């Protein structure tokens, strides 16, 4: 189950750390960092259902099912 209630000990600290991590990066580098971050966090979460739920929220819609599995 994805936690959708506030869950960060200190949201401001995290947000600041996130911005700091991107400081001084080009647009390409920023995208690459985000992609790595997604993979790192996804592995930590581990649960496919939770991740699916997160993907749907992030996309704002239903993510298209893997075309070949339908």
């Amino acid at each position: 189950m994805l936690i959708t209630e506030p869950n960060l000990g200190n949201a401001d600290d995290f947000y600041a750390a996130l911005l700091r991590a991107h400081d001084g990066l080009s647009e390409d580098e920023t995208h690459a960092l985000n992609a790595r971050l997604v993979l790192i966090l996804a592995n930590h979460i581990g649960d496919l259902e939770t991740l699916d739920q997160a993907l749907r929220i992030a996309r704002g819609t239903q993510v298209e099912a893997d075309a070949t599995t339908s």
Partner: protein
Amino acid sequence: MKDEASAWTQRYERAFQLYPYARSADQDAKVPVRHPVVIVGGGPVGMALALDLGQRGVGVVVLDDHDGVGQGSRAICFAKRTLEICDRLGPGQKMVDKGEQWNLGRVFRGEDQIYEFNLLPEDGHRRPAFINLQQPYFEKFLVEEIRAAQAAGAPIDIRGCNRVLKTEAAADHVALEVDTPEGSYALQAEWLVACDGANSPIRDGMGLGFDGRVFEDNFLIADIRMQASFPTERRFWFDPPFNPGQTALMHKQPDDVWRLDFQLGWDIDRSAELNETRVRERVREMIGERDFDLVWTSIYTFRCCTMDQYVHGRVIFAGDSAHQVSPFGARGANGGMQDADNLGWKLAAVLTGGAPESLIASYQAERKHAGLENIKNSSRTADFLTPRSPAHALFRDAVLDMVQDHAFVRPMVNSGRLSAPAQYEGSPLSSADALPGGPDRTKPGSPCPDAPALSGYLLDHLTRATVLGIGTAVPEEVTLGAVRLKGLSIPADPMVSERYLGSAAAAVYLIRPDQHIAARWPQFDAAALAAAVDRMMGRAC
């Protein structure tokens, strides 16, 4: 006539002439002759099916529009399950003797190795996880086995330079028009199996769809012969210096032949890339200054497609005609061999054993499930190798950026998910699992894992429908109507226990003729067995 026949065989160069055109008595028959089974296409799938049917005493005619195996390796990786099927049919040992075994795969990015995998075959199996063998050898060994079976009386008839022009379906047969160097003739089949490849003329002639995805990429294959002491392992590169921004593969085959595979991208000039000087230049950039011969070059693109239904009345599709995958993962010929394995005993049971046609419908259920699984895996590899958008490329690169330092991304690197046998989950032929504590890998629907048994290997003994008692005795022969089951009792040795008993003390398994598990119980129960056999033979569908 001589010129006529040579016009037929010059369409493409062949590696081996195996079935030269010869006039059949059917061509002079006043009334079209009807055969129990006609197979269109003598590729690996058609030949394996013919051999299986012939060994079961079912009359089968194979029609192929050429007179032997085409030049060019195409498939080179053959999986354990395929070798096990070939053991049952006969030529397994020949294939393993000729083939190259490998276990190690190395993945590079640029010049650096980013990770390696070992297929780590489990102990206690007769066959290795994979061998590499050129497809023409694979087909030749099958045909040699057919010749041996024919000599022993198996009713198999291979007709080279016989091209099927037209089919017309009737309720209880299919009528065919077949062209030959000496003109066309009519033929009939109680069952027609279309093993006529990815561009299946039979499928097209029937107006049936073949849907899926085309992948916008080209790959150049160069099979080269060279003396090299590189180890027998699979090497795969992302973005190597000799093919920047693309992928490449190197894999050993028998006869000092190496498969080199270069990703080229979508917008290429095909004929320029196939130019021998250009190909040699590419090869030299990859392998450095050594002597080599070019054995075969080809550019391929691929698609992942499947038919909706594999069975249409008396016409059945098997192999590439029914489903096509990308070469990554070696699921094409290996998947097709499992089609043949699945279909042979069912057709034989319907034609000679009084089984209902619903048994054939289970071929659709089981093999479509397998086809979709193969397509899913091979599409995912293709998506990793050929990112379709900048976002896809971003994640692919993120994986590759981290893989050296972080073990957790290794499972995401996808340079091919190698063929594994299908588990027929939810098959209409399976009975509910009745073995408490039984391992998952041997639940009904699963292929039997091999294990040492009776001073050999278990699969050697599962050559027909079998009641297998493990740590408990079963009758030596069980006859239920037209079905004769072999009874086999084996001790619960450690590897057998681990694979078949789990926490159970003993078990009785019902094994199908294709070495898949139909049912299992803690002890022999004649009534339960009879019901499971009925189900296995399609009588409960």
